[in-house]
């Protein structure tokens, strides 16, 4: 029962508390913004201004110059625009695909029941190992090894599969998928390179898109699974009674309801694909290079070209920041739900 006079809302801080809060928040704002400010002004410096000691204020301490910008967007325009375009295309495509496939899988893990048999899984792994050993040690051509491996697996599945009853559940599948994040990229770089080389997909955007989709699906499944759990079952049940197929339900009911979660997941995955360095470095050589590689490349034998690097960093951040500002609300809500259920 509230008093009639205006009470300070329960979670509104005291004036002293407010002052302290603002000070602390202000400090952190400076901590966040100062490095960005420094990068921004360095983008407008000539080498001597950088090497001769810190200059803080444009026009007062040093004369801003467009040298670095001219170099990157004038002289080297083609070589700057190409990575930029690649980053945009690869990030958007891989994010869209990852969110699509991952959401489908997340939905399936929430609504449908799977019981993959342990025996089947072990058998599959065994067949993969045999195929690899065949290629590596005996020199069997890889399509042959692949076909043999699959055939062997099918045989095992129908033959011995029945013997081993022990099965896993949805949660195990989910855990397996999510645990893929534990894998350090440096572990998989060489085999992935070899695979794409055999497929003739090296230095193409396609290889990057495929790789990023694979790397980011775990995140999508993790987040979307819990978001989808929050959608009331009744809606879907009544639709099913009316005769709608799974696909219809997914497309017309579930997806529209989970737009916030989709937006949040999309932004997160986009950021990760936008900023990824190691895999892009390894899988691209000329045509498919992305912006992070161009940034690292500014560290030439003669030392880092701080000015060009700063220009590239700014040019890289701006689109993502704008997008994030626009979708900020979705992100925090989406992340939370994902985190609560683990």
């Amino acid at each position, binding site marked *: 029962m509230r008093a009639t006079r205006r009470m300070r809302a329960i979670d509104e801080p005291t004036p002293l508390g407010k002052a302290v809060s603002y000070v602390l928040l202000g400090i952190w704002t400076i901590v966040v913004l100062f490095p960005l400010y420094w990068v921004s002004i360095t983008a407008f410096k000539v080498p*001597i201004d950088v090497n*001769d000691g810190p200059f803080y204020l444009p026009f007062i301490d040093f004369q801003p110059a467009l040298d670095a910008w001219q170099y990157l967007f004038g002289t080297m325009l083609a070589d700057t625009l190409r990575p930029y375009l690649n980053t945009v295309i690869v990030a958007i495509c891989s994010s869209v695909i990852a969110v699509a496939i991952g959401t489908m899988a997340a939905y399936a893990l929430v609504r449908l029941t799977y019981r993959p048999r342990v025996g089947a899984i072990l058998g599959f792994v065994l067949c993969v190992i045999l195929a690899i050993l065949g290629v590596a040690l005996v020199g069997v051509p890889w399509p042959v090894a692949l076909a043999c491996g699959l055939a062997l697996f099918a045989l095992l599945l129908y033959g011995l599969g029945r013997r081993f009853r022990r099965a896993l559940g949805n949660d195990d599948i989910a855990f397996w998928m999510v645990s893929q994040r534990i894998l350090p990229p440096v572990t998989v770089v060489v085999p992935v390179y070899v695979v794409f080389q055999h497929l003739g997909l090296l*230095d193409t955007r396609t290889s990057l898109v495929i790789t990023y989709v694979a790397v980011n699906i775990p995140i999508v499944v993790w987040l979307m699974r819990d978001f989808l759990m929050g959608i009331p079952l009744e809606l879907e049940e009544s639709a099913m009674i009316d005769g709608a197929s799974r696909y219809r339900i997914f497309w017309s009911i579930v997806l529209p309801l989970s737009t916030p979660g989709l937006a949040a997941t999309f932004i997160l995955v986009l950021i990760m694909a936008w900023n990824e360095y190691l895999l892009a*470095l390894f899988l691209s050589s000329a045509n498919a290079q992305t912006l992070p590689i161009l940034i*690292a490349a500014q560290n030439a*034998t003669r*030392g880092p070209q701080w000015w060009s690097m700063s220009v590239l960093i700014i040019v890289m951040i701006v689109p993502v920041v704008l997008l994030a500002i626009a979708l900020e609300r979705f992100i925090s809500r989406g992340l939370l739900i994902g985190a609560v259920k683990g």
Partner: protein
Amino acid sequence: MAQDKPFEGVTVNIVTFTGPQIAEPLQRRAPDFEKLTGAKVQVITVPFSDLYNKLLTDFATGTNSYDAAVFAPQWMGDFIEPGYLEVLTDRVKGDAALKWDDIAPFFRDFSASYKGDVYTIPLDGDFQMAYYRTDLLKEAGLEPPKTWDDYLAIAEHFNGKDLNGDGKADYGSCIAKKRNAQSYWFITSIAGNFLQTQGTSEGAFFDTATMTPLIDNDGFRKALQIYVDSTKYGPPDEINLDVGDTRGLFTSGRCALTLDWGDIGTLAIDPKTSKVQDKVGAVIIPGTKEVVDRATGKLVACDATTCPNAIDGVNHAPFAAFGGWSGAINAAKDAKTKDAAYAFLSYMSAPEQANEDVTIGITGFNPYRTSQFENQDLWIKAGMSEAAAKSYLGAIEASLNSPNMVLDLRVPQNQRYQQIVLDTAIHRTLAGETKPDEAIQEIVTGWDEITEELGKDDQLTAYKASLGVTK
């Protein structure tokens, strides 16, 4: 018209690291070359630290997306043994425009060759020199350093004084010592003077008979000590500075001395990068009056037998660190592409183009042809004062003409020897994590291990081949 454009329709994919250095002249001259020959040259760039890896992976897995590469001849050992590079001996001999004999003997006979055959076209001459502030030394009445003791004495003299008039204390000597960057060549620039006296073929890394690392001896020990001592006269975070940082420091006037490749000469004259225009002098790498007797591992004084190449009783061994960016051709490509690639590399190296490019700082090309340092006009035209040109070119001439230049290590997987084992041990010593003696043991053990792993006989053969030793 077809005869005028022999390579019409041919594309040459040439890879190097992201510039502007090295890539810039290639990109700038590609259109001219296309006008002349019809061949389209596409310059692909990758980050420097990954060039070695990408090249090797591309060749080893048979991807072959690169037709030619401008890379470090030091890496040749890994590329030639498996047969990735095209032999260029005959082409070079029959190429008049290239003026092969104008190229300094070291780069011709050692850098570009392996087991007697030519594999690369030099585009750049990499070796290290010492640079000093002419104004400061003149004021103090000091001579440019001839030995390492001189170097340290000069560094000590100027350390802590204000050397560029901004009121802040500056440094006596700035040497790039950052780990996993380019610092691991500087130790050899110092040590080589103690270890190699009889000419390039003697080598400065391993014993040519037994493949024993030339590390556990008094010469290397002394060199390591000098290297550690120089840190006292440098910036406080010197062990985390790489070449870009020390260059920036020197050109903004904050160091009295520095060790570097040839870039400082051209960087110093550009007002956008330098505050020390016309105050920079260069000198051949400081040497030593005591050298190592390989039989005993002890130091002996320099005389006519022990130091046949001494200058004024001081043994100098200029270190051609890294080797000098050179162009090589992928042997797995078709004949037409290889011809076009060769024509482009030859074009880039020909005096008409090269002599202009080496005077421009941004190209990253340093002199490697006799005609480049004999003719001072080009340099004066580029903005060097006569005194500066004389000093700079004189130092280059002395280094290039030295029969005792040290060839960089070129055995297969040399990166593991230098970058993994040597660099780590040296840096740990600089950081105080190990004592110099422990570091030396670490290097010897590490190097021996790699040699054993790759096959001692194979490595010894490769080492001798790279030095041009045919016995």
